[in-house]
């Protein structure tokens, strides 16, 4: 008999979030429409994060926006979104169909804009917001905020003051020391940290001597960045008390367990959907549950940070 999708062992609560299982859809993947998100939930996700939404519509970049690398994908889609006012309707509808927490990813070009979008998202029904301060390929937002401690603190504090729901801060690996940024976000009031967003990268076509992406540079995701993301989670867990969601290249249950052992309370999955389709969530949950059972653990919470020696 197959292990059921959600056992008590997989339940986990942290930072004001209550999840039936510790897997979530990462931002930027599908996640425009309620129906797409619903299919992710049917695939077994314990939470979903929408694509990033801003104050006004954005069309994103021209193709090519995605290029295959040897062990991952490089993308520079460019944060296309219809703007929070139109998207609020979809959030409201999504809330009526989804049975898991709906986390809305927000971005802005100023602290006030982040706060405004977050406020509208929560009013529309978001269970939490995740601040995209780490997109590596759009100027004046994303990682340009997440790489600047002063701006990062200002954005997090302003959003915290504007909404009553958990505020998740998605950190960039494209910094000298991610732990410093994690501390800044935590001190400014972040309830949860997501580590990491994509690693800034590019691809050049040798035949034409041209960068492939229309935006030249993009962000690398997938198996190639898993060890980097794992190290980031491990380092943050050592120095910061705020719960962490691990993200970056997680493809199977072993990857997920590694992240829990490093200190993640949950994991986000994105690129692996291309490799394994929607059921990647169920597969990972079954594997994690079987691991916990085999090792004699009563809850995933018991293995969070277990690899830290001290």
């Amino acid at each position: 008999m197959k292990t059921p999708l959600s056992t008590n062992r997989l339940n986990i609560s942290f930072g004001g979030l209550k999840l039936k299982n510790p897997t979530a859809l990462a931002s930027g993947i599908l996640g425009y429409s309620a129906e797409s998100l619903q299919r992710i939930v049917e695939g077994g996700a314990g939470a979903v994060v929408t694509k990033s939404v801003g104050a006004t519509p954005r069309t994103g970049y021209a193709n090519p926006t995605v290029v295959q690398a040897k062990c991952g994908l490089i993308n520079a889609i460019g944060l296309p979104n219809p703007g929070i006012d139109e998207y609020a309707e979809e959030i409201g509808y999504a809330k009526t169909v989804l049975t898991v927490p709906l986390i809305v990813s927000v971005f802005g070009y100023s602290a006030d804009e982040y706060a405004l979008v977050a406020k509208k998202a929560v009013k529309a029904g978001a269970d939490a917001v995740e601040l995209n301060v780490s997109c590596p390929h759009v100027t004046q937002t994303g990682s340009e905020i997440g790489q600047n401690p002063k701006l990062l603190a200002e954005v997090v504090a302003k959003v915290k003051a504007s909404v009553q729901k958990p505020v998740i801060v998605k950190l960039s690996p494209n910094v000298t020391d991610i732990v410093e940024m994690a501390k800044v976000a935590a001190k400014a009031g972040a309830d949860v940290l997501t580590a990491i967003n994509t690693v800034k990268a590019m691809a050049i076509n040798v035949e034409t001597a041209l960068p492939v992406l229309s935006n030249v540079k993009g962000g690398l995701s997938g198996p190639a960045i898993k060890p980097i993301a794992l190290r980031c989670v491990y380092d943050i867990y050592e120095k910061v008390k705020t719960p962490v969601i691990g993200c970056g290249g997680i493809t199977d249950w072993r990857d997920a367990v590694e992240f829990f052992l490093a200190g993640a309370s949950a994991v986000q999955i994105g690129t692996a959907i291309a490799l394994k389709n929607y059921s990647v969530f169920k597969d990972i949950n079954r594997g994690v549950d079987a691991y916990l059972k085999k090792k004699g653990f009563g809850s995933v919470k018991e293995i969070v940070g277990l690899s830290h020696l001290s």
Partner: protein
Amino acid sequence: MSVYLTSANTLRTTRILSVKTESPTVKTFTVKDKFCAKAKPGQFLMLWIPRVDEIPLSILNAGAGKVSVAVKAVGEATKALHGMKSGDTIGVRGPFGNSFTENRGGILMVGGGTGTAPLLFLAKKLAAKAERLSFVIGAKTKNELLFLNELDALCSEQSAIATTEDGSYGMKCLATEPLEKLLDEEKFDMIYTCGPEPMVRKVFELAEQRRIALEASLERLMRCGIGLCGSCVIGKYRVCRDGPVFNAAQLSEVKDELGISKLGFDGGRIPV
């Protein structure tokens, strides 16, 4: 469910082997590519026009190490492609998506504009296997009726029925008009359709009323081509990964959008 292969998604640069003018606005481009040469009817590829764009295109023909696509000059990318000649370098990834199922009974194909391309590819595969093949194709004007001679050669009995909106060739009407009569007169086991979405919707409705199995190939704005970015969703389906070929049961789940709306570049809903 289509399988995602990182090798097929890796961008290959290749040279254009030949360019054939099909109509005043449509040209067929053939390139060498071992992955796409194995494509099945209904699948598509992503074509990179260096410095310009990357666009999804239905496959017109594949085999012997080569793949062909029929392209109508409509926007910046397709116009730039029309300016290219054999020997020029382009990029390819794919093939992507599912393919038409191969029915061997009485078959009707309904194509509009360049939507006829994947149907011709399918027809060539089915010609020797199917019990009977019939075609209805439509275009705005005579010059734009694509692949009429090729289709005629594949027809079982009567020749392909052609319609033009301006009456310059065949019947002066939309491709969907002669359908009802044809469906009254003959029994079909399967309808395959591809073309402008209002036409696809009408064909779907007629097939549904008469309980005839149907498969339609749909088109949407695409970015990743591998089921991640969400640009091409219709209802709960991703056209690039769950499609582009959908059967009648799936189409009836997306009736609110079929022939009506799609997502634009900003993810907001716009008319088809």
